[in-house]
């Protein structure tokens, strides 16, 4: 929406639609100590504190602008599995007007998640004027989904915000961290994608009546069809762990660095061996052992 679409009092006759995007993620993943595989559990999954901050920010902005006579709605949007629905329903209790789940059963890249969310956010669908996301998800998120979203939706973006203040309906002041302890103050107008840190706001606690009423509410489910190319799982070679070395001896920094880097020690001359596979494997292991990469605990 353009500022020109607002009437003189700054009000948008069609109402302002704020959409908070949240990611259903494993909050306390179990990592198998043997194979390193991550086991996700329904019970330990949920939303990050920055996602909650995004929802609370949307609710506060909607409240502030409603107090100024602007009609506002808050939609919570999540690309996630069916298992997220009980927790998503709780957003009705804090004041969301709509809760939408775009069906996504498996892990996808940030670019693909953003594509999916964007398809639900298009003007023909949810028609968001402000999209508010958490800055990073708790499962080692890169924080790139909001940037991809801004790209898909053609909106301006302000990411990693540490403060939000509403001004006139449809505009807000945002604070962003800069290097050296400095801050940047931005004036944002519709339409924009923003992302907030968890410290920006704590999600309000819903009243008992609203909590009970939310149990009866329905989460809208969208099944968006996007033909993603088939994922090819890359098999990477095994990389040995870094060796722990004793601190280098040496009187000055240069000699210690030389010792540490081995810059002046003789390097292993390249050899070309023509061996059958079994002998070749032996030779590789021998060389690895000579370099100190293999310890006794490793099965050879």
């Amino acid at each position: 929406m353009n500022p020109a679409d607002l009437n003189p009092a700054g009000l948008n006759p069609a109402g302002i639609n704020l959409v908070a995007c949240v990611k259903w993620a494993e909050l306390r993943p179990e990592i198998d100590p043997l194979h390193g595989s991550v086991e996700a559990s329904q019970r330990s999954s949920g939303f990050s504190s920055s996602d909650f901050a995004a929802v609370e920010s949307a609710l506060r902005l909607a409240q502030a602008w409603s107090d100024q006579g602007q009609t506002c709605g808050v939609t919570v949007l999540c690309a996630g599995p069916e298992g997220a629905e009980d927790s998503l329903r709780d957003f009705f209790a804090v004041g969301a007007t709509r809760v939408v789940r775009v069906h996504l059963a498996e892990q996808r890249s940030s670019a693909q998640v953003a594509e999916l969310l964007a398809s639900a956010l298009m003007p023909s669908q949810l028609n968001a004027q402000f999209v508010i996301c958490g800055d990073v998800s708790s499962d080692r998120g890169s924080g790139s989904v909001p940037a991809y979203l801004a790209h898909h939706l053609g909106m301006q973006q302000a990411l990693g915000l540490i403060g939000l203040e509403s001004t006139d309906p449809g505009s807000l002041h945002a604070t962003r961290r800069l290097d050296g302890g400095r801050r940047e103050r931005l004036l944002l107008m519709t339409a924009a994608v923003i992302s907030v840190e968890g410290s920006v706001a704590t999600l309000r606690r819903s009243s008992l009546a609203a909590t009970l009423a939310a149990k009866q509410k329905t989460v809208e489910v969208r099944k968006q069809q996007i033909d993603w190319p088939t994922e090819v799982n890359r098999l990477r070679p095994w990389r040995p762990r870094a060796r722990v070395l004793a601190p280098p001896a040496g009187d000055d920094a240069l000699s210690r660095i030389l010792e540490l880097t081995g810059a002046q020690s003789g390097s292993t001359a390249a050899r070309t061996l023509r061996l059958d596979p079994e002998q070749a494997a032996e030779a590789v292991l021998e060389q690895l052992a000579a370099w100190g990469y293999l310890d006794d605990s490793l099965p050879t």
Partner: protein
Amino acid sequence: MPDFDVIVVGAGPAGAAAALEAARAGRSVCLLERGPYPGSKNMYGGVIYGRVLDTLIPNWWEEAPIQRWVTRRSTMLMAGDQAVTVDYRCSSWGEAPYNGATAFRPEFDAWLASKAEAAGAVLICSTTATGLLRDGTRVVGVRTDRPDGDLTAQVVICCDGVNSFLAKEAGLYPPSDPANYTLGVKETILLPREVIDERFAVRGDHGVDIEILGCTGEVPGGGFLYTNAESLAVGLVLSLPKLAACGRRPEEMLAELKAHSAIAPLIEGGQVKEYSAHVIPEAGYKMMPELIGDGILVAGDAAAMCLAAGIWLEGVNFAIGSGAAAGQAAARAVQRRDTSSAGLQDYRRRLDSNFVMSDHRKLREAPHLVMSDLAQQQLPRIACGVMEQLFTVTNPDPKPGLRKIIRGQMKLNNLKLRDAISQGMKALRTFG
């Protein structure tokens, strides 16, 4: 018009069973839980005896989240670096309808609560009941920690576990005595399934329950070791006042149990995944509160219905049994439009006519006996001493007679024959 017919506080086994039965009887039920999901706050040793579920959830074993079916029960008496174990195996316990099973509470409690929800109860999590709402002496609901958090009902069932603040607020408990409580501490130790199978000599989904006496030094109590699918539960139960008086840390005492030569090889190489602690209403029958008031019932640990009697540590089955009875009685009282104390007396009748009260009444002296010096100190030492002498070959000296060995050990441990007989009689009367 109250918000609900019945409010159940606490979605542990007692609360879930109460909500299930009241909802099944057609009443509107709200099940309040302070944790983010049922079972999230709950810990215990690890064995559930499911017979009580047969009538509530037919063929429950086909769907309950079970770790292993217990087919081996051992009772171990420890003294110093010695141990005597009585080991019992029963392979039919590994087949339907089964006997006991190890299970994780976050999984088990959530499963049981889901049955109550499926029957129509409304589960509200992350919500703590902070007090009772009253009309005169009559309980008419609860106050919660949510904004505008008052909720009214015709009957409130307190299933909020040991040290129930609600039952105390209702005036149903006499002033509490710390001597009635023990502290349970537990470590969950990860080990691969095959290692557990090997060390405990079980296969498939069969598992082991070991109860231990004589492993808590000067503090009366006991120990346990249970097998889960890919972890072990090792823990201690310790008398609360004696623990406080001795000034030792429970985790230090647990470390000693783990280092004992009878336990260390079983847990060797395992990775501690979790440490947890919880209070147990050890005195059972003797500390039970009034169970019924105007508009209020108390069930499970909140009513001290945990059976802690040495070779038995059962609470979940008593919680389910009492919770179900409370749910049924509340539903009946609502239907008859009399939820006064008199109208709720059906709860007492139901408890008296099933295992909950008869076991507790019969075994009411058991906690005291198990915590006595005889059971805690003398018996384990005498048993280990007798075994040592019996099996130590003393050639060229001839073997001593068993009677002589026993007498010698009794003398060594200051146990008079008269005391032994009188305690034996007491034990027979209690357990007989």
